[in-house]
């Protein structure tokens, strides 16, 4: 198992800094994701680790040893490309065998390993076919098998699910997670889709404009985003307007909260955020709870199968809420909104603009 460390990595393309002073540590056998919109520098970072792109500044360590001057051929960081890049003139078996040939592995052993690998990725019947003759999902498997067969120290996956339909995507995600858990290869996945990262990785690094904004566990990123950008990237969020803050109480449109628990870190410049699923709706006048509840009116309802999304008008503001399954509320219904202090997110940092009456921004 291998540890990967990036120290102050910077890359300039056409005068523009596409990766900015990036620091990252991936523990032995860990699978992490670099998440961000396109153009955020994540694929460049992956290529820098693979040795395909040279960084202007910074150092890369694999297992504690600097690999800055080790060419891609000898680095042991194998990349699986978004567009597969299978060699069209070689069969599936030939593609998988390629890395072993380059390592001058004897023919007999090569053949045996290719057969094992074909079986491992469930493509035993397709070894003799050409890349042009297999499906997109199968090509993806071949690309992964071609990378795995050389027993890389680090496996780098560049948007491995982007070209797949939803069903295949889910299948491939669990396939990759299974492989990673079985082989315990240190793996870095790059994606623009938060679900890819949440489902597969033990840690996620969010990148914007070449900068690694936050690196942590999926829970940390979802529940304690460092910036509004990160919070928004992980899905819909209500930005809770503040009325006033006192020494130990925060007054908001959704009620007053004591600065304890998750709100302890609230300070000047912070912003309160709330995920739609943390907003509960109940019938107006419901007095089961000691919490008084804020009256509101349903203005929009979107049924999405697993969930139903609502927009509730509260004192001229639209608060987003979501409930599991088919929600009972309809448009024009009067409801009461409640929220738990524990589910409020305190967002600090440069983006946390804390002006009175800030409105929710639509994604």
């Amino acid at each position, binding site marked *: 198992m291998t540890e990967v460390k990036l120290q102050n990595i910077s890359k300039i393309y056409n005068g523009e800094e596409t990766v900015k002073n990036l620091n990252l540590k991936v523990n032995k056998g860990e699978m992490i994701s670099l998440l961000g919109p396109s153009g955020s520098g994540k694929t460049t970072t992956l*290529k820098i680790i*693979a*040795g*395909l792109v040279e960084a202007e500044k910074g150092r890369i360590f694999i297992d504690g040893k600097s690999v800055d001057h080790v*060419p*891609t*051929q*000898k680095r042991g960081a*194998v*990349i699986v*490309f978004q*567009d597969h*890049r*299978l*060699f*069209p*003139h070689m069969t599936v078996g030939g593609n998988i065998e*390629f*890395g072993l*040939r*380059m*390592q001058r592995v004897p023919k007999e052993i090569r053949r045996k390993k290719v057969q094992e690998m074909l079986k491992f990725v469930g493509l035993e019947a397709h070894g003799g076919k*050409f*890349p*042009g*003759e297999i499906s997109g999902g199968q090509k993806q498997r071949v690309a992964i098998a*071609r*990378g795995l067969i*050389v027993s890389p120290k680090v496996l780098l996956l560049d948007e491995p699910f982007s070209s797949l339909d939803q069903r295949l995507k889910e299948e491939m995600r669990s396939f990759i997670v299974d492989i990673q858990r079985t082989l315990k290869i240190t793996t870095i996945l790059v994606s623009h889709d938060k679900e890819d990262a949440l489902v597969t990785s033990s840690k996620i690094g969010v990148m914007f404009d070449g900068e690694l904004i936050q690196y942590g566990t999926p829970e940390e990123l979802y529940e304690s985003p460092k910036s509004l950008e990160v919070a928004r990237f992980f899905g819909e969020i209500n930005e809770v307007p503040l009325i006033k803050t006192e020494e130990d109480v925060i007054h908001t449109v959704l009620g007053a909260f004591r600065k304890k628990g998750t709100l302890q870190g609230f300070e000047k410049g912070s912003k309160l955020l709330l995920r739609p699923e943390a907003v509960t709706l109940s019938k107006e006048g419901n007095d089961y709870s000691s919490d008084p509840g804020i009256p509101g009116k349903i203005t929009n309802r979107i049924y999405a199968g697993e969930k139903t999304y609502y927009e509730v008008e509260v004192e001229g503001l639209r608060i987003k809420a979501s409930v599991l399954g088919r929600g009972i509320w309809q448009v024009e219904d009067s409801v009461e909104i409640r929220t738990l202090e524990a589910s409020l997110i305190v967002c600090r940092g440069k983006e946390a603009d804390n002006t009175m009456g800030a409105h929710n921004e639509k994604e």
Partner: protein
Amino acid sequence: MFKVNKRRLKPYIYLFPVISILLFVFTLGLGNSIMQSLGYRPGIGLYEVTLDYYREVFRSGGFLSGLLFSFRVSLISSLLAAVIGVGIAYLLVMQKKEWPVLQALLKLPIIVPHLVAAFLIFTIFSQSGFLARLSVLLGFIETSREFPPMIFDTRGIGVILAYLWKGTPFIFLIVYQLLRTIETEMVEAASNLGAGGKELFFRIFLPLSLPGVFSAFIILFAFSFGSYEIPFLLGPTVPRALPVLAYVEYINPDWTNRPYAMAINMVLAGVSVLLVWMYHWAFSRYQQFRKGH
């Protein structure tokens, strides 16, 4: 009544004026040549359709040595052009810089007419040419007559050189564009899996560009096999290249010789058809590769 698919007919209708002229000229010319090669030419009193002219042509020593000469010269010049063209393209594609001036210079011979190419080769490689004089000047030989004959020689060196000078840039042009797309897509993948320069060339570049190289090779071969001006100007009198032989028979004042010229032309046309078929075969294989991406 059968239903006519108007949409499918449309392009043919639009192109009819051009196609009709092309087909008219082509079929008339070809038909006329075939008839003449079979000895049918009523204008000069030849009415009997016969294969005798073919038989005689095949039996004559001039034809066989000419065929061999044409084949050898075309094969050697096209093969060398392919090897050198691919080599230059590979070397250039592996450079980080594009070298636009060098590329323009490399492509220059493509636009130079074959007649000019023949003249250049003559002035450089003939026994009274630049190299011969330079050799005398440098004291390698005493008189320019000692300079090895390359023009009008039976080995056809001058002809090969002229075709090589014209053909190499053509191969380079095709292969360079092809290799560039391979470069961006495949080199990263292959080198990341451990491939070095030699392996990249032999396992990735060469096999991927081979169908394109083959197509270009066939075009070069077909052209040099069928064209007459270079071997006419730089080639030997014996053996004569096949197109030169056909030309000489054609301009013979004795019109009854015309069927021999046409029979030779038909052989040239037959070889061309075979080459076109090979070209299509290579091209379809190349398309299959592209699809596999």
